[in-house]
Each structure stands twice: as structure tokens, then as C-alpha cells.
């Protein structure tokens, strides 16, 4: 019986050995899964809230001279729709400004940029993709120099052309074109966009800006929000709206001090790196609406210094004719005045013939080099010395020096107390009529212009050939010596 028990044990062993053997051959233990597989708290992750609306708007009373003209460029393959500026243009209209579009394709827009800038107070350029010509760049530079306002807006989202927005990303054409205009004004856009991964308005590219340099453009601002913005660089100008340490530039991936808006050293030109913030609903976020109001104020306060090259657009409104008492209104004179009236009317300017001109009217003064007490008050601001007041009988014109009055027609323009005075002076009536005709027919083409003064050759005389000295540093010597 003992053998039987042994046999049973052996049999059980034989039964188990293959099982245990195979088990151990394959399995060396038991996998212990984690107690819990952690999952993201999907239901607790909050969707960022709607944009915070800005506070009360502070409006600034701005005294305007005339009706400011705001010219919006659509002639350089600008990648935007004018309606995207509606919030801004409404503010401009509310301030009495006239909004005009520059469209090179429109048949009526034969004046071109240079012509249209003559009567504009501000020029807005958004996402231009077609280069400006050299004369256009120069015209814009002169426009700003004459106290015109320039606003250039780029938006990095407009640099891409395909629907998904990746393969053509940041090709920088608009930057090149915009910087053409801005570099003479010490402003430049960077080929980047700004982002903030730490504190943002719902997305890393929606950046809060809370640092501002003192300027009317940044008055009453605590926080503004930009929605995909380029940074702007200036050497001697003023960075206006600055990002904090967590606001990074996509070029360097470093933060701190990036500016989304900057003004030129003379504060007449502004480069702004975002278009989206001007549009609903983003225009109402944080203090964006206040910034838009400030922008509108900036644009309409561009009071152009009168320059003869801008004729007939040196006037603000109605123009009254004032003539010397010695100057008889003969048929030829009336004809020339009529032609001038037509020219001014074509530019939307009314010419008034009245014995007592309205106080707020601009003036067209017609006189001779002979002294005339009636005109002294009008001519005094021009700071010219008439031949009768000079011991040598020479005509002294700022910027031109002393001139022999023979054969010269003098044109001068000055703005004082909100009104513009344009004076036409010549040696005699015949030459004065000739000068008036010249002005009305060809806007002083062929005359020598230097800012507020112009010299035209009228009739026969030595005028252009007898200049004693020049005070201006222009290369006109050859022209005068002919």
C-alpha cells in the first residue's frame, strides 16, 4: 500500500511538471497594472471666456480747421477690405472727417497718390502688397513733413494667402512694401508676430499690452489686446504700446520690450502691427475702443502746413479775393479770376468775390510790388521785403534771397489763425494777370517752388537771371544761370 501512495505522488508530479514547466517558461510573474490610469479632467477644463469689454471711453475735444480729408489706400494690392476699418472710419466721420479712397483702378482717380495727398490730412495704408514707386515714397515723405498724418497698419495674418494659412506663411511682401514708406520716417515692421503663452486672450497670439509710453495716442489706456500682431521697431521714434516679459516675438522666441505700435520722431507717422483689433467684436475688448478713438484723434489733427506744390489744395474752405487798390479789375483780370474760380471749384473750393471778405475765409491776395497799405496786413505774415522797401530795389523772399523784381511773379502762402492766405504779386497788372493765369492753368508748373514761396517768370525781365544770393541749399544754380 505504501507503493501505491508513492505512485500517486509521482503521478501527480508528472501531471504538474509540464504545466509548471510551461508556465515558468512563459510567465515570470504577474503584471500589476497601475492602481489608476489618470485621465485629463476633460469635463473640468474650462473654455476661455468671452473677451472682457473695455471701460468708459474718454473722448477728447479736438478743434478742427476745415474738414479733414482721410485718404485710405486701396491702390497697392492692399489685402484688406475697407469695411474692416469701419469702426475707425465711423469715429473719423463723427469727428467731421471726410473719408476718401485711393483706387488706382478707378478711372476718376487720375490724380494718383501724389495728387490726392495734396489735399489729404491723413493717409492710411493697410497691408500693401504692391510696391510704392519712388515718387510716391517721396510724396508720402513730404506729406508727413508738411504735418500730414500717416498710419500704416500691417497684420501678420494677411501675409499668408492660402486658406489654411501655412505654406505661404510670413512671406513678408507687405513688410517690404510698408517699410519702403516707413524707413525714411525711422519706423520699420519686423517679419514676425507676437505671442504670449502665459497670459493671453483665449489664444497665444491674442496678446495683452499693458505698458504705454506717454503720448496722446496712449491716453486713458490701461490694457489693449492685439490679435496676431507684428512688432514695430524705431530707433529715434517712440515705441507706444509695449508687451511684457511674456510677450515673445516669433523671430527670436524671446520676450520683453516688443512694441506693437510706434510713432516716428516727429510723431506724425504711426506704424501699427494689427488690423484685427479694429474690428468687432475685438474692437470692444479691454481698452481697444479707446485706442481707436485716440487713433481717430491722431488722424484728424494733421493740419497740413500750406505748400505751393499742393495747389489748389492749400485752402481749407471758401476763398475770398482781395486785390490791391491800384489793381483795376479789367476784362483780362476778370477772365483770369474766372479761370482760377473754375480750377478751385473743380477741387471743391469756392471762390468769393466780395468787398469785405468773411473773417474765417481763406484769402487770395492779388497785388503789385508797389507799397499798398491796404495789403500790408495780409502780406506781413509772408515776411517778404518789397523792392520799394529795399535800398537796392530788390525783392527779398525767404528761401530765395534778394531778387530783381523784373519779370518775376511771386507766389506766397501762409496759414495764420486757421486761415490760409495765398498772395500773388508782380511788377505790374499785366504780369499779375499772367501769374494768375499760370496758377489757374497749370498749378505753378514751371515755377520755382520752395515750400511756401514760388517764383514764376512772367513777361519779360531779368528776374530769374539776377538773383544775388540764395538762402536755400538747392541745386538750382544751373537753372538760374540760363
Amino acid at each position: 500500500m505504501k507503493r501505491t501512495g508513492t505512485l500517486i505522488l509521482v503521478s501527480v508530479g508528472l501531471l504538474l511538471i509540464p504545466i509548471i514547466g510551461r508556465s515558468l517558461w512563459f510567465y515570470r510573474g504577474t503584471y500589476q497594472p497601475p492602481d489608476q490610469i489618470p485621465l485629463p479632467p476633460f469635463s473640468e477644463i474650462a473654455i476661455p471666456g468671452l473677451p472682457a469689454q473695455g471701460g468708459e471711453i474718454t473722448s477728447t475735444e479736438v478743434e478742427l480747421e476745415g474738414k479733414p480729408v482721410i485718404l485710405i489706400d486701396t491702390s497697392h494690392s492692399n489685402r484688406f477690405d475697407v469695411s474692416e476699418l469701419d469702426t475707425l472710419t465711423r469715429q473719423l466721420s463723427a469727428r467731421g472727417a471726410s473719408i476718401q479712397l485711393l483706387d488706382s483702378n478707378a478711372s476718376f482717380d487720375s490724380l494718383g497718390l501724389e495728387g490726392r495727398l495734396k489735399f489729404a490730412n491723413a493717409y492710411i495704408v493697410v497691408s500693401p502688397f504692391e510696391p510704392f514707386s519712388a515718387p510716391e515714397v517721396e510724396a508720402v515723405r513730404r506729406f508727413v513733413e508738411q504735418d500730414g498724418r500717416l498710419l500704416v497698419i500691417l497684420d501678420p495674418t494677411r501675409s499668408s494667402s492660402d486658406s489654411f494659412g501655412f505654406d505661404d506663411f510670413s512671406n513678408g511682401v507687405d513688410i517690404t512694401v510698408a517699410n519702403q514708406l516707413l524707413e525714411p520716417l525711422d519706423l520699420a515692421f519686423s517679419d514676425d508676430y507676437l505671442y504670449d503663452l502665459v497670459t493671453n486672450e483665449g489664444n497665444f497670439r491674442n496678446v495683452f499690452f499693458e505698458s504705454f509710453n506717454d503720448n496722446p495716442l496712449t491716453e486713458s489706456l490701461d490694457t489693449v489686446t492685439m490679435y496676431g500682431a507684428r512688432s514695430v521697431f524705431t530707433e529715434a521714434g517712440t515705441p507706444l504700446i509695449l508687451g511684457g516679459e511674456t510677450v515673445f516675438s516669433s523671430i527670436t522666441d524671446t520676450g520683453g520690450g516688443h512694441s506693437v505700435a510706434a510713432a516716428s520722431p516727429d510723431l506724425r507717422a504711426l506704424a501699427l502691427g494689427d488690423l484685427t483689433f479694429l474690428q468687432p467684436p475685438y474692437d470692444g475688448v479691454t481698452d481697444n475702443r479707446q485706442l481707436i478713438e485716440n487713433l481717430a484723434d491722431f488722424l484728424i489733427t494733421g493740419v497740413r502746413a500750406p505748400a505751393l506744390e499742393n495747389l489748389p489744395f492749400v485752402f481749407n474752405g471758401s476763398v475770398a479775393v482781395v486785390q490791391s487798390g491800384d489793381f483795376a479789375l479789367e476784362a483780362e483780370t476778370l477772365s483770369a479770376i474766372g479761370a482760377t474760380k473754375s480750377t478751385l471749384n473743380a477741387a471743391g473750393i469756392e471762390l468769393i468775390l466780395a468787398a469785405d471778405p468773411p473773417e474765417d475765409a481763406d484769402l487770395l491776395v492779388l497785388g503789385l510790388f508797389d507799397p499798398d497799405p491796404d495789403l500790408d496786413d495780409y502780406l506781413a505774415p509772408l515776411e517778404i521785403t518789397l523792392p520799394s522797401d529795399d535800398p537796392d530795389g530788390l525783392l527779398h523772399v525767404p528761401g530765395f534771397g534778394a531778387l530783381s523784381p523784373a519779370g518775376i511773379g511771386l507766389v506766397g502762402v501762409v496759414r495764420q489763425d486757421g486761415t490760409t492766405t495765398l498772395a500773388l504779386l508782380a511788377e505790374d497788372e499785366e504780369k499779375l494777370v499772367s501769374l494768375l493765369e499760370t496758377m489757374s492753368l497749370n498749378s505753378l508748373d514751371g515755377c520755382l517752388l520752395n515750400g511756401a514761396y514760388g517764383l514764376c517768370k512772367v513777361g519779360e525781365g531779368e528776374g530769374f537771371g539776377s538773383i544775388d544770393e540764395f538762402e536755400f541749399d538747392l541745386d538750382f544754380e544751373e537753372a538760374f544761370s540760363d
Partner: protein
Amino acid sequence: MRVARAIACGIKSLYDCALFGPRFPISTSETSTAENTAAESDSFRKRYLLLLLIPLTLGIALAAMIPRPAVGLIYLRDAIHAFSSAEMIAQIEYAREQPEIRAVVLVIDSPGGTVIDTEAVYLELARLREQKPVVTMAQGVAASGAYYLSVGTDYIFAGPSSPVGNVGVVSQLPPAPGVFEDLVSTGPYKLFGSARDAQLRRMEAIKQAFYSAVSLGRGDSLQIGPETLLRGEIWLGGEAQRLGLVDELGSVSQAIGHAAGMAKIANYRTINLREPAGLPSELGFLFFMETEQGAQTPYPRQPGLYLLWVPPSEGASP
């Protein structure tokens, strides 16, 4: 105890019977005593051997029923979309149900895909991990949604230069709401789904979930904070390991070995789970746009929310 004792006694009785024959008298008149003794001894040996063979055979038979363990391989060589995710989920379910599949290796070469399909696979992987270890091998690209899946596994291998990361969300915003003359709806967003701005904010929530998944999956291994991770960068495998985005650089076989080690199995086999899960051979799915010349672009055909890497592709604009 009584039952056990009775069974033991029963077995013992059976053995006694098998060894010593039936308990009835043998006629002494038929055989001599010596012959009887020799015959009984021979019979006893045969019965003895037989009784040893039976349990051995039974043991072998039973042992043969113990399955050879396997490491299941699930390949993701496409974007994550409705079809590829359904196929992955079928394979995950198969792995979960089959006891011999003791571990799973996810072999990835994918730029990611749709949010909903990625999340669906991610959640199925979490269920699988409750039973079996899952290891990722980033053999090619493991970007965006593909990396989302990776962090939902227990261990991540990557090739030394495998592009890894790209944490974030991409989307094409819906059009600005409008009204049409002939196409009418009952609400301003019935046709468009959401306002453009709302979609942007939803993306942010999805991004946060993605970051949460990375943070939970990588734990203390992660060496970078959200401000770096959420930039959406792609890192090569070596960098990714240094930053804690992956655990180790290696190959598929190493990943398989690691998965087997986690499952504590040896002498295992590997199974591509595609066929056992009843899936047909891999079919192409038109997820990406194609150019007029037939070249594939990195852009998805349908607008929507994506956990997708869209690498620059010059000349491949849709």
C-alpha cells in the same frame, strides 16, 4: 475533508485495482505458482508505466493548453481619422479580450489627426492599460495627436531622430455667419457650428486637455513647463528624451522586449493584431488634400479641429 478523503480513497482504490488486478480469486489449477508470479510482475510493471504515462500525458496536454504569451503590435502609419481610429480601437479591444496577449506595443508613424478620433483611441488605450502594459515605439513621426496617444501609454521609445511633440491644436475657423436666400436655418450658428471666436476658445480648451494628458502621462519625467511645451515644437528623439517627452531611444524590438518585461513574460511571440482583429489589409483613406497633380499635401480635406502636425510644404498649397 470527508469528500476529499473519499475521493483520495477512491483514487487509491482505482490505483490498487490497476496495479493488483481485480479482487477476485485466481484459479491455482490453471497455472503454476512460479509462472503466476512472473506474469504478475510483468503485468505490474506495464500497469505501473501506464499509470505514470497517464498523468504525464495529461500534464502535457494541460500544459499545452497554457497559451504562449504574445506581445501585440498595433501599427499607426496614417493620420488619425475615423477609419484609422476605428481600426486601432478594434485591435485594442482584441488585445484586451485575448488572454495570451500580455502586452501591446503601439508602433507609430503619424502626424496626428482629428481631435475626436485621437481622444477616442486615447481613452481605449487607458482601458487597455488597466489590464496590460502598453508601450509606444515612435518609429517615425509621433507628432501632435500621435504624441497624445503616446503619452497615454506606459513607456515611450523613440528613434534617435524621430520627430516627436508638436503639442497643440490646429483648426480652420468657420466662415463668418451670414444669411442666404435659399439655404435657411433655425439659428445663427446652425450652418456654421459656432462663431469664429468661440471656435478659437474651444481650441484652447482642447489644448489644455492635451497638456493635461502630457503632464499626467509623463509625470516627473517631463523637464519642460507649459510655456515651452505648448509652443508646439517638434523635437528629435534625442532632444525629446532629454526633455522628458520620451523615456528611451530604441527600436521596435527593444520596445517589444520592454513591453514583455513589463508584462513579466518570456519566450513570447509577437502578433500584428491587425489580422487577428479581423481587419482587412491596410487601405488608403483620403484624409489629406491632393494637388491637381495628385501629390498629397499635409492639409486635411475637411475643416475641423485637429491635433495635427502640418509641416511646411512648398508648392503644395491646396
